[in-house]
């Protein structure tokens, strides 16, 4: 179906638009920020936002929306920014994305909407992510909660349980509450947000932002229950049979840390990235001494891995006071899966990068504390299945480096709890829940989406999966009503 073009409010002639430079987002000074946990990026100001929005050339066939996993109406909200209708722009985004302030901060726009931006083919792409963040923040300060008054629909009388309050679960909650269903989100931890709260540090995603987004959903009528472990506190079967939930969505994420299986990983001072970041983020270790969470302040920290989690961990270690905080990565920087922005920020903050190096053993002292890492140098071979050049160990290249903390950030697996307690739900050999493209699992009325199905991915992909599941759950609930005689 052909999409209607939004009303244009851009007064800058097309040719001139291409001469406008992409607006830089102000950020905290690198030296200063490497000692605090305040947000690094400070956001565009209104003038910058309008200028950036004016760079959009209003393509007849915009491709940016296709690059967004939740299909935000990007051309529409950009035009509203040109008209300085920032609250209207926020509402427009909220039609498709319940967490714009989060996505504006943590989405890898450079590989999604901005990658396919037509302006970006010859010039720098329109900074869609920065604009999204700007209007979401503006709405939080100047708007009325979720900005647009939410028209509560007639109650459907049907109940949906959402397991996990991460991005997938919140997306499902946002879509289904608008249809009049009774929505309850069950969270195992004591704060809502899943990986957004335990995994992403304050300096990248302030917790106040997330709390505001959750509060918006609460204001819309979503019930949130914390400290409730589905599979332990209550099983899925009990939720459906005893508590009367008509459908369940499983958005548990991939929270099971993976280790390397090398000698010495059990030494004191060797953490999984999950544990290290959870202690710092969720348990507020970064707010010492106000919060006295045990968290080792290392002098020589190494973080093994090259993804965004590794960058979050190394930058956290640096801020906690490490003299040396280094990334140890077995491939080269070119193959790193972390966002370029995160790598750039880490370097600015003094993080060292030991690329083409892989630890093969951690060495401890008599008390069982890690004191050194034995590493091997690697060289790049032919591309592997991921298309990245494969690292091959270099014989005889072993060397030892002094460390007093190691964080393993090589990826996460799925939590096995649901699979263990609900045999009706099929899982694959990696422990991920098997679901079709609408999130339907092998158990009647149970849907799943996000990292628990796909394995570790991005926030917005989890939200996209959540929205697909929400649509499928909606149809399922309608069919249940239809089948009642």
């Amino acid at each position, binding site marked *: 179906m052909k999409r209607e073009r939004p009303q244009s409010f851009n007064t800058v002639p097309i040719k001139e638009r291409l001469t406008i430079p992409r607006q830089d987002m102000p950020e905290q000074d690198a030296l200063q920020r490497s000692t605090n946990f305040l947000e690094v990026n400070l956001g565009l100001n209104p003038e910058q936002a309008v200028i950036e929005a004016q760079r959009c050339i209003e393509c007849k066939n915009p491709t940016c929306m296709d690059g967004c996993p939740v299909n935000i109406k990007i051309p529409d909200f950009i035009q509203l920014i040109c008209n300085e209708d920032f609250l209207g722009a926020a509402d427009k985004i909220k039609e498709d994305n319940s967490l714009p302030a989060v996505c504006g901060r943590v989405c890898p726009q450079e590989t999604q909407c901005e990658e396919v931006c037509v302006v970006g083919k010859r010039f720098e792409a329109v900074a869609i992510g920065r604009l999204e963040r700007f209007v979401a923040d503006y709405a939080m300060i100047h708007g009325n909660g979720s900005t647009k008054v939410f028209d509560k629909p007639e109650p459907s009388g049907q109940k949906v349980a959402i397991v996990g309050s991460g991005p997938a679960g919140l997306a499902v909650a946002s879509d289904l509450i608008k249809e009049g269903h009774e929505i309850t989100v069950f969270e195992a931890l004591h704060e809502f947000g899943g990986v957004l709260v335990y995994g992403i540090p304050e300096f990248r995603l302030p917790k106040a932002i997330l709390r505001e987004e959750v509060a918006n959903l609460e204001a819309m009528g979503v019930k949130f229950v914390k400290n409730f472990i589905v599979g332990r506190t209550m099983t899925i079967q009990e939720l459906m049979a005893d508590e009367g939930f008509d459908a369940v969505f499983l958005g548990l994420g991939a929270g099971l840390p993976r280790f390397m299986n090398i000698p010495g990983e059990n030494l004191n001072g060797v953490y999984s990235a999950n544990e290290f970041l959870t202690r710092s983020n969720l348990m507020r270790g970064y707010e010492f001494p106000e919060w006295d969470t045990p968290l080792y302040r290392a002098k020589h920290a190494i973080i093994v891995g090259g993804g965004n989690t590794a960058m979050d961990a190394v930058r956290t270690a640096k801020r906690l006071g490490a003299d040396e905080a280094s990334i140890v990565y077995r491939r080269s920087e070119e193959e790193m899966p972390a966002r370029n922005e995160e790598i750039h920020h880490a370097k600015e903050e003094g993080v060292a990068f030991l690329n083409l190096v892989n630890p*093969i053993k951690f060495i401890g002292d008599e008390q069982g504390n890690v004191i050194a890492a034995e590493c091997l140098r690697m060289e790049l071979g032919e591309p*592997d299945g*991921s298309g990245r050049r494969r690292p*091959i*160990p270099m014989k005889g290249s072993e060397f030892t480096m002094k460390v007093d903390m190691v964080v393993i950030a*090589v990826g996460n697996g799925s939590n096995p709890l649901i699979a263990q307690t609900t045999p009706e739900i099929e*899982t694959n050999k990696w422990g991920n829940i098997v679901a079709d493209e609408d999130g339907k699992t092998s158990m009647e009325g149970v849907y799943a989406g996000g990292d628990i199905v796909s394995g*570790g991915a991005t926030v917005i992909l989890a939200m996209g999966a959540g929205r697909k599941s929400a649509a499928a759950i909606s149809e399922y609930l309608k069919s249940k009503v239809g089948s009642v005689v």
Partner: protein
Amino acid sequence: MSFKEQVSSMNMEAIVEMCIDQEQQAIDLYTMARDQAKDKSARQKFQELIDMETEHKVALKDFELERYLELPPADLKVTDYLMAPNTRENMTTQQILILAAKREGKTARMYQELADLFVQDKKLNTFFQMMADEELRHKHDLETEYENEFLQEG
């Protein structure tokens, strides 16, 4: 007595018997692990490994020279520095892959030594070289699977 000395004192029949025994040990190990595994997917993975080793046993018995002709892939050495897990009832897929890749690597080295030992006998040299290559191929496949799932550094 070194492996080379041990093999030098054996006739061909005994060498093949030794190799079959080696494959049978792998089958027994994976069968035990499959029967102990609680997880359905772990049982499936062990069954795949049993089928693979059974095929090797048949090849050895029939002394089939034409069975494996593809060139061997590179040894990725991904699991060479990892700790070998013990078999137990709730092994994870990660542990299964490490266990199997290490075992395939060890068997590949045995066949390679046999191929090197019979360098003068073209037929035997070719046969053992192909068996070594085949084991290395399996190690490569297992390590690729390991790398794709457990070393994505995301």
